[in-house]
């Protein structure tokens, strides 16, 4: 008997429903009362990996207990709040087995079977080795427990329905282990693994598509982080002096490099964390990133005279004490603005953020500091100053839409 068209359609729909259901439904993993004991070595390794992975940067609220969550991470779709990943049994991951933790890291599914938002960079963590995930689990399960529940995410319908992430994962999550590239040496491969599987550098430094996924084929080609410019870490790098393995390693370790400048904005937290990880890992990350960077670049321009006289007066009165030629700070090793990444970047976003926010004091750290000028400069003055820096210190073409970028940065800071 021939199947009628209607029956075929009905069967197809049923299959789709069952298939979608199978994709959407994930079982809870039974809660455990963990009294597991971890080796000192495993916990210490987990601490290093958690530092490279910057877990505490997102999972700690301002002045909050480390890993207790509550920090709102702004996304183009709304604010997602990082959850409590301390071992508190009620509000943290205290009842998560290692298998549940691994599923969250690999598949973006929590212990109860709910989808996690890819603000948690599980498309990267999915490449982490079993041993490294186990070490991070050991580290987190031995942190002091905090009783803390994150605020509810602020996402519009339908994005606040977690099942939609099943579709997102079909499109953008490609599970599977990391594979070394035999064409490269061990340090390069180690760096590649740390950058891709743990450090998730691409979460900021790769452009994102309309659905918030890292654009394929544009790995580390430059992106955005919390309205800051995240420069390309490959051939499109705007650095006037080409980065080398040694200068990258210095920068990652200290947050400052004498021919490029200081880590600022969201990057300060990254370099703060990297200050404490094994040197071999810093060297490996630097080896991998440097291999993608351009090898030559034009010499920087000398500061040009002239330009908008009003902006020149602002620069002379507000900036030149540190950034003028032969200012004390330049003698202490700070680079000329002609070498600055943000001044030579394709958008004014970084320069504007630096002017508005500077680099805040970080208590107890020997680290670069720049006062903020957001309180004293009007939006128009910020725009004039940014355009003046570009015209004076860079060969690159003038930025467009500078006032609009200032307004955007004000709204977010």
């Amino acid at each position: 008997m021939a199947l009628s068209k209607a029956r075929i359609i009905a069967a197809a729909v049923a299959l789709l429903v069952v298939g979608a259901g199978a994709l959407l439904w994930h079982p809870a993993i039974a809660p455990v009362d963990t009294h597991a004991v971890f080796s000192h070595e495993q916990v210490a390794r987990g601490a290093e990996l958690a530092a490279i992975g910057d877990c505490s940067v997102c999972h700690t609220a301002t002045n909050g207990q480390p890993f207790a969550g509550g920090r709102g991470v702004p996304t183009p779709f709304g604010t997602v709040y990082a959850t409590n990943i301390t071992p508190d049994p009620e509000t943290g991951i205290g009842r998560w087995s290692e298998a549940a933790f691994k599923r969250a890291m690999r598949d973006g599914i929590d212990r109860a079977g709910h989808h996690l938002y890819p603000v948690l960079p599980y498309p990267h963590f999915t490449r982490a080795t079993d041993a490294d995930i186990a070490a991070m689990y050991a580290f987190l399960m031995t942190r002091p427990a905090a009783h803390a529940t994150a605020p509810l995410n602020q996402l519009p319908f339908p994005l606040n329905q977690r099942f939609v992430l099943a579709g997102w994962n079909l499109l953008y999550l490609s599970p599977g282990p990391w594979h070394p590239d035999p064409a490269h040496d061990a340090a390069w491969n180690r760096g590649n693994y740390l950058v891709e599987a743990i450090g998730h550098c691409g979460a900021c430094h790769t452009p994102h598509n309309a659905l918030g996924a890292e654009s394929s084929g544009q790995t580390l080609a430059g992106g955005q982080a919390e309205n800051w410019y995240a420069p390309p870490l490959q051939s499109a790098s705007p650095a006037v002096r080409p980065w080398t393995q040694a200068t990258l390693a210095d920068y990652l370790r200290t947050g400052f490099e004498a021919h490029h400048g200081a880590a600022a904005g969201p990057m300060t937290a990254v370099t703060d964390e990297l200050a404490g990880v094994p040197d071999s890992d810093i060297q490996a990350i630097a080896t991998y990133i440097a291999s993608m960077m351009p090898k030559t670049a034009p010499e920087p321009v000398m500061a040009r005279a002239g330009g908008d006289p009003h902006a020149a007066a602002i620069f002379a009165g507000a900036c030149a004490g540190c950034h003028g030629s032969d200012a004390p700070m330049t003698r202490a090793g700070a680079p000329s603005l002609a070498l600055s990444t943000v001044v030579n970047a394709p958008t004014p976003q970084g320069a504007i953020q630096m002017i508005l926010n500077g680099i805040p004091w970080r208590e107890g750290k020997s680290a670069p500091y720049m006062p903020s000028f957001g309180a004293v400069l009007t939006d128009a003055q910020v725009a004039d100053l940014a355009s003046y820096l570009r015209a004076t210190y860079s060969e690159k073409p003038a930025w467009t839409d500078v006032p609009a970028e200032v307004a955007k940065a004000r709204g977010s800071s």
Partner: protein
Amino acid sequence: MIRLNVNGHDHDVDAEPDTPLLYVLRDDLALNGAKFGCGLGQCGACTVMVDGRAVFSCLTPIALLPGRNVRTIEGLGMNAVQQAFVEEQAAQCGYCIAGMVMRAQALLEHNPNPSEQEIRDQMAVNLCRCGTHMRILAAVRRAAGRGVKS
């Protein structure tokens, strides 16, 4: 000539537009409360308020200021914040205190009931080389209970 409004009074100042506000306050207007410390925005001794927000006057060229309101410690009078600094005996040598008072004033005008952390975050950029930070913090806490709009 650049017209500045300081503590509610207009002044026409004959100075280059890149001149730091601090120099004009001290050299032209005889308002000597704000102090020169580092000249680089690193110590806060020169802190004054512009349109209600604390700024480093050493890094504020007067070109920025036409149409805006500058307030210095001379314009506060013995208000709640200054009174609290006296009661807590927060000054030792006193060099940083005008800047500390102005930063505290700016904080409390925007946030009359700051948390301990908010007080510390706001005051962190102003330094006291004598080491009276604990008394300064106590003074800000004391002032916070009193309302500072004046």
